[in-house]
């Protein structure tokens, strides 16, 4: 079992279902990557690198999702 802390909440994944990258995680969550800013262990990950950034057990990820209006 792998665990990711997503927006402060621990989420468990079976070994074979752990998302490999940030892009994979967003796809599992059903979130459009164009609406999100991601921080992995406190470091900002640019959207262009979502597919290249691998995730590991125990990491802390903050996903800020924007909705329109201002």
């Amino acid at each position: 079992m792998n665990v990711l802390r997503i927006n402060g909440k621990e989420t468990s994944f079976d070994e074979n279902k752990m998302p490999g990258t940030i892009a994979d995680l967003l796809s599992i969550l059903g979130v459009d990557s164009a609406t999100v800013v991601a921080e992995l262990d406190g470091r900002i990950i640019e959207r262009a690198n979502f597919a290249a950034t691998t995730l590991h057990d125990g990491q802390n990820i903050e996903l800020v999702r924007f909705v329109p209006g201002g």
Partner: protein
Amino acid sequence: MLEGAPFAGVPFRFMDSISEKLSCMAVGIAGLGGLGSNVAIALARAGVGRLIIADFDKVEQSNLNRQQYFTDQVGKSKVDCTIENLRRINPQVEVVGHRVKLDSGNIPEIFAEADVIAECFDTVGAKQIIVETVLSKMTQPIVSVSGLAGYGKSNEILTRRVSGRLVLVGDGRSGIDTCEILTAARVGIAAMHQANAVLEILIDELTTKTQSKEEEI
């Protein structure tokens, strides 16, 4: 009486060390719609020394339901109108206006001298770009907003610190795509959360840093 300096002769309790500190600080305001036009006014009234404002748009009739402009300003540049309005409120504030569309290329240059940046855009794409750009290419804190559409549910609009340099205001879900309307009241609540968060960072965090630098010298 009261010519020039708006607070001259007024026993204004806020004219203390805090306003002295604020008068030396600069805030970047990205977008001058419902959020930015309100944030600019709150920060000018608080006595922030310099506001760096940017927007490419003109005032439209449909903006008047929530944005701080007037009927005789329809058709004029939002930057020009904001400068005009701020001058009437507090002429001591220096306002630097940029009539441009902000993108990841020009954001670092335009807001280089800001101590804090307020993200006041309406579209998701623009919000994403500026927050990502500030966090990855700059060193300042940014106060961003997500979820302010609709009416009522005042207490669902929150201010939270996401991480070291990112503060997020809003309920996180009420977009114009799902809520149909934007109201001056609820957009205004979010804008005042945002201005208040900017002031908190300027006063509690940045002035303390400046003080400790001075002590080192």
